[in-house]
């Protein structure tokens, strides 16, 4: 899967919106060996942002110690129909991806 799929789901809680986002990424630590015995180079997401209606609400820096195919859950204050939520990431190679949804 190239710059793989991302999937986001939002659930309305008591005065907050639970946002769960899954992303495809190898999150290589640089310590794993491939089938030929060669070290697989570091390749992991370093920055992650969550924006609501274009406004930054979560700014995260993460390390290679986050699991492969990361799954994050965040909580946003409130949440109204039509609110646009965007989650974006960038990795140590400068590759990036993002996904966005509107609360129904």
């Amino acid at each position, binding site marked *: 899967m190239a710059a793989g799929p991302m999937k986001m789901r939002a659930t*309305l809680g008591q005065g907050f919106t639970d946002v769960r986002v899954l992303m495809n990424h190898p999150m290589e630590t640089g310590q794993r060996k491939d089938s030929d015995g060669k070290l697989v180079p570091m390749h992991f997401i370093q920055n992650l942002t969550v924006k609501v209606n274009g406004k930054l609400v979560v700014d995260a820096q993460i390390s290679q110690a986050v699991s492969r195919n990361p799954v994050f859950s965040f909580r946003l204050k409130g949440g109204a129909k039509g609110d646009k939520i965007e989650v974006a990431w960038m990795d140590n190679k400068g590759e990036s991806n993002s*996904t966005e949804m509107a609360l129904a």
Partner: protein
Amino acid sequence: MNRIRRALVAALAIGLAKPFAALAAWNKEAFGAKTPGDALKNLGVPSGAPSGELHIEAPQIAENGAVVPIEISSNIPGTTALIVLIEKNPFPLTARFDFKEGALPFVKVNVKMGETSDVRVIAEAGGKHFTASKEIKVTIGGCGG
């Protein structure tokens, strides 16, 4: 009563023309530190006072260290950041989450643990720092190989 709102996902693979506009630059020194002390020094963050209002929800035993689910929430008023360290990992600093107006100081994330270790969280609130920690036993280390 909770209602599940499922919105259609626009699973876009947006190729960003401009460099990713993250406001927090990835702290290379802190993430490259080999001890929790050095990581915190590079972050410019003290160890913090223990607080019962900082919660770590995690299993006591992880079947596989490759995926250890942890849920962190802070009831400390004015919490603006949560820092996660895995003491015995080769590079203890695992993540730093900065929360702005509009987000609650809450996160759930899956982490890799190389061996049984304390997971330590530091919360930044109103210029002060607080800490909590929890030991997670790992049956099979998950860093590689």
